[in-house]
């Protein structure tokens, strides 16, 4: 690649006296963008298929199963269908803003992938403010959605846009505050630095480091749901109230952009939780080859993220939607004060136990295991009572 | 209380303003003077013995020579019911509204106004409810003829069957 670029420079393809650094930089940027677009977009699209299948099981239906094995290629078919559809811009809409809005939303979903720590050396840019970046950049979504709502010139869209803005901005605060306990403990804002401070075993995860971190993790996950307009916080596009909220007037690919961003953001929100609290890519050093190690780490990271994505699908299949005043009071009356207490509590904790407290870690871990076991026991008891014959076989 | 004894009580109180008490039909009814409607209804609602707290049904019937508005009253307190009727002239049927006594009359009176053309004096919001606002005529009247078109939308289509039908008439 470098040789090819050098030959191009030598042939004068970029003018007589080009700066090689600039050209290398541009080439790397284009390559990264291509990789991102080829990875992030199909990933988000495949998640749509997973979501539809999982959701269908929960609702005792079959879901898409015609295109490809088990309907796996459904996302391609849907994408193709949406591209082929007519892109309608309503006559009364503010056309430039209307057209621009979906790109901002997609931008907000593409940018965070730059600092996504897939493995110990698989990261595009290990920024020293990575965690700040990854919480700040998705806020572009607000502008995109508000713009979409306003430019549609439709009152339902406007209400959807305003709801979304109110919701995302409110939940940024507890989400931001929930990050600080970890930052306090590690003293770094770099994604890799935070992951390196944890271990592969659950007792070394920050989730179980102290009680405050556990609460912070729960707040961060729920705020992530709210920021991405996921059920039970899907008020901006509440289909039974606002038709389709900010996306009411959109059609074709632009409509798809919104939903691709939503599903992609789901993954990003999960990745933040995994990085901060669930040990990221940490994997026991059982192989010597760095390449194989990186692959194993990638698999670990992905599995953890996908599990959280699955949990969010699960929640979507179970819970109704909250009302806007309830959503706001949850944020301002509960999450924000609790987050501040967390922050103070962690500061005190770090002052008392600068290197952590093994006993508390084990205690928290056993508490976590107990919660999971209790939950599993309830699920098992319920499935025994439920009429499983009503639910279709997973591979239909 | 049986409906007939309710009507007896009414006629002993309102005398000649109760025009007729009929027990020939399956459900007996009392015909009252249109001007006495509000007084009778207020009495029926407020008398503790009768306590007709619910206007269960209100509708109109076109009898070619008159229009009758029928009130089915019901008491949840005493579990009894009675039927009142007012007879109105066909060309200008006007009667007082009972909306002030039972809120459920609001929409039912709008429906009677819409479909039979009875005007309810004092009604707070007497608009057409089921038919379009600019509809002409009152569909449930016996002499109503369906217009051949509405805003350019044809309601009949020429066909040999329709022509035969018309010939028969």
């Amino acid at each position, binding site marked *: 690649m470098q040789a090819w670029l050098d030959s191009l420079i030598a042939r004068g393809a970029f003018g007589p006296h080009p700066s090689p650094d600039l050209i290398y930089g541009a080439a790397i940027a284009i390559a990264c963008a291509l990789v991102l677009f080829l990875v992030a977009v199909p990933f988000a699209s495949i998640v749509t298929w997973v979501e539809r299948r999982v959701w269908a099981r929960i609702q005792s239906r079959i879901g898409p199963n015609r295109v490809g094995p088990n309907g796996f290629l459904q996302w391609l078919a849907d994408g193709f269908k949406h591209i082929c559809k007519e892109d309608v811009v309503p006559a009364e809409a503010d056309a430039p803003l209307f057209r621009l809005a979906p790109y901002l939303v997609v931008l907000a979903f593409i940018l965070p992938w730059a600092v996504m720590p897939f493995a110990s050396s698989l990261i595009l840019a290990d920024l020293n403010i990575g965690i700040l970046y990854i919480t700040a950049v998705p806020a572009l979504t607000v502008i995109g959605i508000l713009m979409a709502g306003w430019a549609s010139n439709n009152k339902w869209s406007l209400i959807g846009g305003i709801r979304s803005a109110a919701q995302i901005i409110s939940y940024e605060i507890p989400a931001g505050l929930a990050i600080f306990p970890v930052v306090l403990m590690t003293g770094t804002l770099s994604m890799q630095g935070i992951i390196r401070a944890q271990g592969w075993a659950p007792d070394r995860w920050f989730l179980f480091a102290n009680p405050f971190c556990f609460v912070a993790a729960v707040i961060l996950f729920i705020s992530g749901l709210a920021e991405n307009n996921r059920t039970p916080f899907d008020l901006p596009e509440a289909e039974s109230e606002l038709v389709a909220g900010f996306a009411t007037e959109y059609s074709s690919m632009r409509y798809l952009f919104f939903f691709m961003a939503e599903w992609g953001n789901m993954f990003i929100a999960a990745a933040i939780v995994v990085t901060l609290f669930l040990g990221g890519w940490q994997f026991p050093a059982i192989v010597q080859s760095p390449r194989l190690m990186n692959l194993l780490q990638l698999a670990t990271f992905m599995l953890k993220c996908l599990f959280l994505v699955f949990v969010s699908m699960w929640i979507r299949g179970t819970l109704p*939607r909250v009302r806007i005043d309830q959503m706001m009071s949850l944020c301002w009356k509960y999450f924000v004060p609790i987050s501040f207490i967390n922050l103070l509590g962690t500061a005190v904790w770090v002052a008392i136990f600068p290197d952590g407290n093994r006993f508390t870690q084990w205690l928290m871990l056993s508490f976590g295991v107990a919660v999971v076991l209790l939950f599993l026991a309830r699920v098992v008891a319920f499935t025994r009572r*439920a009429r499983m014959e009503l639910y279709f076989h997973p591979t239909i | 209380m049986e409906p007939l004894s309710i009507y007896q009580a009414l006629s002993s109180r309102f005398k000649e303003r109760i025009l007729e008490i009929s027990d020939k039909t399956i459900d007996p009814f009392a015909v009252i003077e249109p001007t006495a409607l509000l007084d009778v209804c207020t009495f029926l609602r407020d008398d503790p013995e009768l306590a007709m707290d619910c206007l269960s049904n209100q509708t109109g019937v076109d009898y070619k020579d008159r229009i009758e508005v029928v009130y089915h009253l019901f008491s949840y307190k005493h579990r009894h019911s009675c039927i009142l009727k007012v007879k109105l002239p066909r060309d200008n049927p006007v009667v007082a509204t009972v909306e002030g006594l039972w809120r459920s009359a609001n*929409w039912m009176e709008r429906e009677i106004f819409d479909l039979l053309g009875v005007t309810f004096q004092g009604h707070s919001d007497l608009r057409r409810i089921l038919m379009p606002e600019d509809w002409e005529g009152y569909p449930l009247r016996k002499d109503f003829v369906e217009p051949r078109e509405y805003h350019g939308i044809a309601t009949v289509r020429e066909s040999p069957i329709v022509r035969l039908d018309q010939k028969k008439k």
Partner: protein
Amino acid sequence: MSAFHTEEMTLNMGPQHPSTHGVLRFVIKADGEVMREAIPDVGYLHRSIEKIAEKVGYHGFMPYTDRVDYVCAMFTNQGWAMACEKLAHIEVPRRGEYCRVIAAEFNRIASHLLTVGLMGMDIGAMTPFLHALREREMINDLIEELCGARLTFNYMRIGGVAWDLPPGWRDKALAYLDHLEPILDEFNALFSYNKICIQRLANVAVISADEAINYNLVGPNLRASGVNWDVRKDLPYSVYPEFDFEVPLGRGEWGTVGDAMDRYMMRIREMVQSARILRQALTQIPDGPVLGKVVRNFKPAANECQVRVESARGDQGWYVVSDGTGFPHRVHVRTGSFAAMGMIQKLSKGLMIADLVVLIASLDVIAPEIDR
């Protein structure tokens, strides 16, 4: 706050809106998320069914009654048949009455399943809706076997019902009831007792008993406000006196008596009672004919009567005037949805837009029943 001036926004909800349950329209005057008023505009489904009745005769009107309330058409069938029988003094054989009760109670369960499912859908949970429709589908299968139709049944006739229970149907129906009761528990665990569901429904759009009576609310909506009135118990018709069942009332366990949660729970509890009636009816059903002898073109003498039937949407009143010919002189249906719809304008004041959706769903209004 008075210095902060906000402008009133007029929103048009419907006639094509996902949660208006048919073709309804509301003109909403809103201040942000809070409604000042929601003015219902009905009539989009008006087909003048009452006028049609005057043209098609007594027997011929039966299929049209299905269209008055297509979600629980058995009750409109039954109301019309009972009114005609009362006018023409026709006796219905006992097995015919049992068939009517069985079909109608199955229809009530189906209708309530749709209502509780739609409630889930309207507050943003898809799963309860699909689970409820799955169960309703099985009832549709049963009724299809009974009368050949899944929605507009046209099952009843003046003087009885059209068809006897098919062979083996009784066992299927009983097997379905065995299946339904645990499913209702599962449904409650999934949705009814969900914290978010309770928060969304409790204390929303409270209707007091006096208001409910004054606005002529009927059926589950009335009973949710604590008024003990069920036509099946209090003005018994058909063979209902022979069955042992309870009339559930709104108790306000989660909020106030007469709130949306009470109206929602009414439907769940009535399904249990319907299942109870069905079990008794299916085991007690006598032998005999299902359709009495009725003159093909009967002409009841000039008379009039009112019949009240407890439909899934409450006390349905059929007022029929005959004039001695083969055609009714006037037919009027007093439906529960019409009265409930008239109340929405009053109830909507001060609610949020999201609550309006809950209100419509909890009152269980069906557009064709309003417009007829």
